[in-house]
């Protein structure tokens, strides 16, 4: 009980000015995180510059919990590239490899077919009903870089929300009770 009492006392003893400093430093952390994220969006030109791999369909190249860096440029899509795409009516983006490209002359229109390296068949079963090809607007970006394991933090947090609340709570308490 002594420890908790001490913490409560330390919360009580906080001066107004100190409280303000802590609020500002917390704000600094949040805003700098936001700046980094938005800056990455500008540099990569992709709506979500970093994605976490959620399925094993690209194993052994990408495993669950790996992080991919995306880049979206005006360059045409070519066979073999690993693209991240969104299917109409589905929330979760998919990371798969392009295996077929049919590009119209003059217009930017392109038909693309994808497949997961570890899947047996192509992705037509994953597409919307009756959809045979992906078009340009389905594609959010192409994967250019790769960092293993880091994404497990987000997977754990989305699958076990309690961990998220414990983490946020602990960090919040730390910020409030810490001096200096």
């Amino acid at each position, binding site marked *: 009980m002594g420890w908790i009492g001490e913490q409560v006392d330390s919360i009580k003893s906080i001066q107004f000015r100190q409280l303000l400093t802590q609020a500002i430093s917390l704000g600094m952390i949040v805003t700098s995180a936001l700046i980094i994220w938005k800056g990455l969006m500008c540099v990569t030109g992709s709506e979500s510059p970093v994605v976490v791999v959620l399925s094993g369909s690209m194993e052994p190249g990408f495993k669950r919990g790996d992080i991919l860096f995306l880049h979206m440029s005006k360059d045409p899509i070519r066979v073999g590239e690993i693209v991240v795409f969104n299917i109409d009516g589905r929330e979760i983006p998919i990371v798969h490899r392009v295996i077929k490209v049919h590009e119209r002359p003059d217009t930017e229109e392109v*038909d693309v077919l994808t497949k997961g390296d570890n899947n047996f068949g192509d992705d037509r079963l994953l597409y919307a009903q009756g959809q045979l090809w992906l078009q340009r607007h389905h594609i959010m970006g192409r994967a250019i870089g790769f960092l*293993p394991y880091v994404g497990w933090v987000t997977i754990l947090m989305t699958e076990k929300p309690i961990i998220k609340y414990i983490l946020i709570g602990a960090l919040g308490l730390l910020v409030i009770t810490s001096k200096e």
Partner: protein
Amino acid sequence: MHSLGYRANALLTFGVTILACMCAIASFSDTLNSPTPTARVQVLNINRFQKKPDGDDEVSMTLNISANLQSLFTWNTKQVFVFLAAEYETPKNSLNQVSLWDNIIPKKEDAEFWIRTTNKYRFIDQGSNLRGRDFNLTLHWHVMPKTGKMFADKLVMTGYRLPELYR
């Protein structure tokens, strides 16, 4: 000032920074490698060449693929994804790329290989434009690192002309 929390925080920050630096260096070391892969692809036979009921042309062929991609492997290479694509132009499309065969090479020892195979993915045109059509065969590879930037390159092979008649 020197509480447990601060020390743990400093240690964690330092550890993560070092790890990030090592990942960046490992990824950078890949750029020092200048690979010299070799490959040869032959179309041995056109097994089937038909117009499908929906009007699109389809080809089935037997291929002979031999390659030595060992020089692509570095200490930061997790796998090399290799695939063979047919590229051609039709009146409808300015570019058609169709993947015919692919393979995942996890080890350097497996990077020298030869294989006789039929096309793994269906070679179907958008329309009926394949009779007498020239296409290029290109061997592409995609180097996936243990961490960092991915690399891709290709070797353009000799082309092939499809027969004038269905068979």
